[in-house]
């Protein structure tokens, strides 16, 4: 499941909730080594496929068939050339980048506006509406993909960026609204009142007061939603059937089966495809963790 979240009217996830290190809580000395052993074993299990991917991607095919798991006899970089042939990865990256950027920007704008109203304005049906929107988070996209496909075909938006961006933006919007509404509610009222006395308009308040204060929450939301769109297979597979519009995920799925007899090339392709997300994860780890557990954590 993606950003697995259910409704929970509580505070936004704080840095504290995600990773407050507690200094008082330490394992007794005789427990430490067994714990290290188990954790190392788990880490090993997690890293094995990564090791296999890296090692295989720099082997020749002959080397691979003789030696599945050892280090390469000779480092071969031509697999990357083969994988990149015709610039296909660049095209896929380009497509994924356009879709991810478009969907994240559109959903963020729409969600920020709505969350502002949900958090700070009074209107009939507000809570019911918010609950309904958060409920949408558990609807599996596969359930609605058939009518979406038919609908986009009818209005000639199938196999287009705008149509697909709209759908992705809609799929990630409920999470964005949910997260931002909770965050906006924690912002002290005094900051608003000061602004109001100065005669600022609502839009001024939103842009000048609320947004600057919310940048960590917005960054978290952007990362989670970008991850969702970038990693999605189903929607891209259905809505972008044309070869030249393939995303990275659709591309590598096809690529993986085409090169399933040339494993080193397939693994070189997988390395190329996974680098952006791994780099982003290592740089913004706390935002990933905070975002993906958002909504599930109760203070």
């Amino acid at each position, binding site marked *: 499941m993606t950003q*697995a979240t259910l409704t929970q009217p509580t505070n936004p996830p704080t840095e504290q909730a995600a990773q407050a290190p507690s200094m008082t809580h330490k394992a007794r000395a005789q427990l430490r080594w067994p714990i*290290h052993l188990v954790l190392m074993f788990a880490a090993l299990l997690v890293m094995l496929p990564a090791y296999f991917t890296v090692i295989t991607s720099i082997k020749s095919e002959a080397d691979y068939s003789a030696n599945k798991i050892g280090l390469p006899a000779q480092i071969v970089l031509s697999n990357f050339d083969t994988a990149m042939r015709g610039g296909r990865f660049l095209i896929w990256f380009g497509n994924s980048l356009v879709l991810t950027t478009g969907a994240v920007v559109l959903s963020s704008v729409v969600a920020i506006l709505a969350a502002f109203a949900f958090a700070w304005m009074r209107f009939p049906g507000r809570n019911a509406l918010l609950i309904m929107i958060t409920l949408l988070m558990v609807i599996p996209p596969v359930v609605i993909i*058939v009518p979406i496909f038919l609908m986009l075909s*009818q209005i000639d938006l199938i196999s287009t960026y705008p149509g697909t961006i709209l759908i992705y933006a809609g799929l990630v919007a409920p999470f964005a609204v949910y997260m931002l509404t909770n965050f906006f509610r924690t912002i002290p009222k005094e900051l608003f009142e000061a602004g109001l006395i100065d005669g600022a308009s609502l839009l001024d308040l939103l842009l000048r007061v609320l947004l600057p204060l919310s940048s960590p929450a917005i960054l978290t939301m952007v990362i989670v939603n970008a991850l969702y769109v970038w*990693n999605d297979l*189903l929607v891209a597979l259905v809505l972008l059937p044309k070869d030249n519009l393939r995303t990275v995920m659709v591309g590598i799925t096809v690529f993986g089966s085409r090169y399933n007899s040339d494993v080193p090339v397939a693994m070189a392709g997988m390395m190329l*495809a996974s680098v952006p997300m*791994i780099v982003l994860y290592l740089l913004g780890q706390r935002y990933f*963790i905070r975002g993906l557990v958002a909504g599930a*954590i109760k203070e």
Partner: protein
Amino acid sequence: MLKTRWFTPWLFIAPLLLLLIFVFAYPLVSIFDYSQRRIRVNEGPYIGTTNYQQVLSDDVFGQAVAHNVYLLVAAVPLLVFVSLFVAILLYEQVRAWKLYRTILFLPYVLALPIIGVVMSNLFQLNGAINTVLNAFGLSFLTRDWLGRSENALFTILLVIVWRESGFGIVLFLARLLSLNEELEDAAKVDGARWWQRRWYVTLPQMRSIIEFYVVVSMITMLAWVFAYVYSMTRGGPGNATIVLELYMWNFAFRNALPGIASAVAVLLLATTFVLMIPVFILRLREQRAWERGDNRS
């Protein structure tokens, strides 16, 4: 609360509502409608419950349901056990625990299609997994992991647990780190052993997050395993790893029968909501307790 004119909030919400109606409301209404029609292209005559009858009497549908149920029954307890166990060990905050956490969460960040392609190579008959098993003298464990019907679904289960436990670990750890240390210290003073404190002090406080994770994982196993299956086996060999999502997919996009696919969608949606009910009752109860101000007791 800000004072606004009555229509102002609606101006702020309107773009969101339009988007959600387009992406969710219209399609959700449509699947109910389509599921009762014999659809060709995008319209067709009303045929009542014929699509449902056809789906329910299809053997392949039965297989798909059985496979989802197998994943649910096997994976959910495994996921809870593994994630909870690892999270509790991480909670001890041994040296480099943050590094362990970074590594253990990594699979959850990686895209499923990438994992699928890598894993299907690892699990080939002459692939790395069997090579490693042979090297360690465990050749009795080697098998054709994905190529034979009797193994394929189990292999997919392994990959699912491998990846999804990353989420559970981080989720449980975040909850553990927010726990009240006083109870733990009091138990320590009373001379409770490590495992006693975990069992009698820590676990009871984890109840609601575990329940949450169980429900999320159940829904995942029913309705979010498409990418695993599609990128590893496409449902094969034969129908050995077909799941509900793939069954729907086949009817919608290979057999061009959206009516049948919509009937499956309705059944899937209904099941998802039934699974959600206990969570909402629970949440509602917690919310009321919180409002009464006795949530700390």
